């Protein structure tokens, strides 16, 4: 129900907008291009802060492995620019547009970092936060400040960018960010093992991840999910997928070695591999039916199969595994039992990635935290945004 939008062109104008909001006590919904408006708890705000005019590449230095951009810069502009220099964001940012009923290829760099969504390469290259080097922005106090730096190695002061990654715009309206970029792999292949049950599949992924072969993707698609894949459906049945990337000769050698060690029913070549891991990354299997709720569960990898079994016991959900069993994507019918209880004893947590507004207003989207941690998170929020004006309630009610 946002009605009025501030669209600053500069950090100074952004600070003015924030000062206005402070003096009027008006909360703001912070937006890039709005592709993730359905992620997080719905924000109650009559004013929006649109950062899409803060756009443009400030510096791209491939040899230094750093990129500085204004936060409203579209990913559609940045990703091809990196690709032209054979580089990329190694954390493999997800594109959830289609999952939310929007076209693919949208979004801004700021939104990507604020959401902190990370793809299959997490197991090898880390998360969005691991590639986030520097930030400038305006706090909820209306003050322009910066944190981190513009070089790949830096421990000067607190690592503020880490805190911004995944904060969903609740701490600071970011204006400019510096990221680490890395060489994109020259080649890619995928080993596929067919017909395995979940537990057996996770064991195979574990063996692959315990090998020295630098596995960069380790996913398992149970039969019902594999059937929705544009790549592995034709192979029939459940597909356990292991990705190897790098220089051509290296990939060839590792494919051969891993095939020897684990066996493989198929090896996907480059194009099929790219297509398959894009599906896995973007949760393509759960785009339809659109009414289903989509959950993301982060658990110790060895617990993945057990948690999936517990979920299937209480509901008719579809589940698939990424991160060697450590990430579960779950599509459940609306009104289904609370799947969070299936996490008991694992130390893991669940995020409700897709659900109608009313559900996201009543069911906690982000996992409820134990009291002392929740209290600390609230104090952290307060240290940036004492009046709770930046995306209030987007992460947790009251924060």
């Amino acid at each position, binding site marked *: 129900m946002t009605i009025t939008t501030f669209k600053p062109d500069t950090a100074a104008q952004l600070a003015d907008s924030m000062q206005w909001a402070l*003096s009027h006590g008006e909360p703001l919904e912070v937006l890039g291009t709005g592709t993730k408006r359905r992620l997080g708890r719905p924000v109650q705000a009559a004013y929006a802060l649109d950062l899409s005019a803060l756009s443009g590449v400030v510096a791209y230095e491939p040899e230094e492995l750093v990129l500085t951009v204004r936060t409203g810069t579209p990913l559609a502009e940045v990703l091809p620019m990196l690709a032209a220099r054979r580089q990329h964001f190694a954390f493999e940012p997800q594109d959830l547009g289609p999952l939310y009923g929007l076209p693919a290829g949208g979004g801004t760099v700021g939104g990507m970092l604020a959401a902190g969504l990370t793809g299959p390469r997490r197991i090898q290259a880390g998360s969005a936060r691991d590639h986030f080097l520097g930030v400038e922005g305006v706090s909820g106090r209306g003050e322009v400040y910066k944190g981190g730096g513009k070089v790949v190695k830096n421990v000067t*002061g*607190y690592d503020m960018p880490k805190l911004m990654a995944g904060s969903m715009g609740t701490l600071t309206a970011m204006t400019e960010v510096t990221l680490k970029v890395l060489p994109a792999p020259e080649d890619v292949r995928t080993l596929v093992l067919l017909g395995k049950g979940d537990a057996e599949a996770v064991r195979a992924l574990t063996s692959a991840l315990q090998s020295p072969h*630098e596995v960069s993707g380790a996913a398992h698609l149970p039969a019902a999910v594999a059937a929705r894949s544009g790549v592995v459906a034709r192979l029939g049945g459940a597909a356990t997928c292991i990705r190897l990337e790098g220089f051509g000769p290296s990939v060839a050698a590792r494919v051969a070695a891993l095939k020897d060690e684990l066996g493989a029913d198929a090896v996907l070549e480059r194009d099929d591999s790219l297509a398959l891991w894009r599906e896995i990354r973007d949760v393509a299997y759960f785009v339809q039916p659109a009414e289903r709720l989509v959950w993301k569960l982060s658990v110790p990898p060895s617990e993945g199969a057990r948690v999936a079994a517990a979920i299937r016991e209480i509901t008719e959900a579809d589940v698939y595994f990424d991160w060697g069993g450590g990430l579960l994507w779950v599509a459940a019918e609306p009104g289904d039992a609370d799947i969070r209880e299936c996490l008991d004893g694992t130390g893991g947590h669940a995020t409700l990635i897709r659900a109608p507004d009313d559900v996201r207003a009543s069911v906690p989207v982000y996992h409820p935290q134990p009291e002392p941690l929740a209290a*600390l998170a609230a104090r952290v929020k307060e240290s940036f945004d004492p009046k709770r004006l930046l995306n209030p309630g987007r992460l947790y009610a009251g924060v």
Partner: protein
Amino acid sequence: MKMPTPDAGIISRRREIVERLRAIVPGEGVIVDEDELRAYECDGLTAYRQPPLVVVLPSNTQQVSQVLKACKEMGVKVVPRGAGTSLSGGALPLADGILLGLGKFNRILEVDYDNRCVVAQPGVTNLGISNAVAHKGFYYAPDPSSQIACTIGGNIAENSGGVHCLKYGLTTNNVLGVEMVLMDGTVLRLGGKHLEAGGYDLMGIVTGSEGLLGVVTEVTVRILKKPATARAVLLGFPTNEQAGDCVAAIIAAGIIPGGMEMMDKPAIHAAEDFVHANYPLDVEALLIVELDGPPAEVDYLIGTVEAIARDKGAVYARVSNSEEERLVFWAGRKAAFPAVGRISPDYYCMDGTIPRKKLPLVLQRMRELSEKHGLRVANVFHAGDGNLHPLILYDANNPGELERAEEFGNDILRLCVDVGGVLTGEHGVGVEKRDLMTHQFAEADLKQQQRLKCAFDPDGLLNPGKVFPELHRCAELGRLHISGGKLPFPDIPRF
């Protein structure tokens, strides 16, 4: 360097404080003897010394929690300490504060190969973790040169790196979870064995917070399978520029080596005299490039790197043909600090990061500064990520030389910031670089960081006097200054 004025009131209450601590940590866990306290008076930055009021060595999380809670109640400051190898004075004690040593937290709690992680107490050494999993071919990737001695808790506090962090990341990229205790005694768990901690990334803030936010009492770190092979190539260049160009070209070719280190002529000579690694002595710059991974990859990339080096004007190239030879290549680099220690009574190790392309400029300016201050400097350099370690040679017995060395060091660090870099790439700010923070950060930047500290430690009792040049009360930091009122520019109805 001035530390906050000690609180005479606290010092006069020492007996009461000791009694309270003894009630929590019995027996030898509370140290009050002057001679014994002296063992803790400094860390790796030995120019600064101060015996603490009391040393406490708790042995479990509950004791840490009770000690911190008691200190908060009594208004007593606390300095955490691991092995005391910090090079920035992060563990420098306070005359009116207790030193909280984590030495008794020295057990590995769990090795979990299925989840590829180790759960350890914070006093376990960095190498201790790798050693515990070596028999299965695993290791913990961040490898500071101090890894035999430094603790994993200290690594978290400093976000330490090593020669392999270009490819495998710093501490922060390899930690999955921590248990920590806040100054009010609250015990928290952040992250765990899963790959993504939920909520705000507090673990990311705690890592590298130099003991200012909480005391880490347990750590879960990621372990990796050792690469199948590793080979190194030594490359000598007639100029620093060419060596720098070679590094840039290797990265532009899409290669991220396992390690890529550079030494300048003084460092090469000092290292060669010390360990006889057979380094070429007639070059200005030496690169050690290590490639690791499957043999097919390593062989392929060694060829590529050699070709790039030739193209960039290398006058010397030698590839390691055995594991022994590879280790000899590294021996010189790894011994660079002690090697420099042999040619000079004292040396001062700096740690700034620069955009790599500025290397020739920075080295040139450093030569000028060396003349200005009348002190020699040798450079070792994590070339891949732009992290410089200039070693300033001086003799503390000559009056005024230490001060000159510090001034020289400060000039170098300011230079790093001025060319677009930062004050510290891995050693931390501590007390050493504290007063230079205003050169890199504006007042608003530092105040926002301090507000974050207030969320963890509102009374400012944990490791005060480190990192921030100026202390402010949290109430003062929290005050809002609202200036606006009018709409700054026309609003555009949109949705």
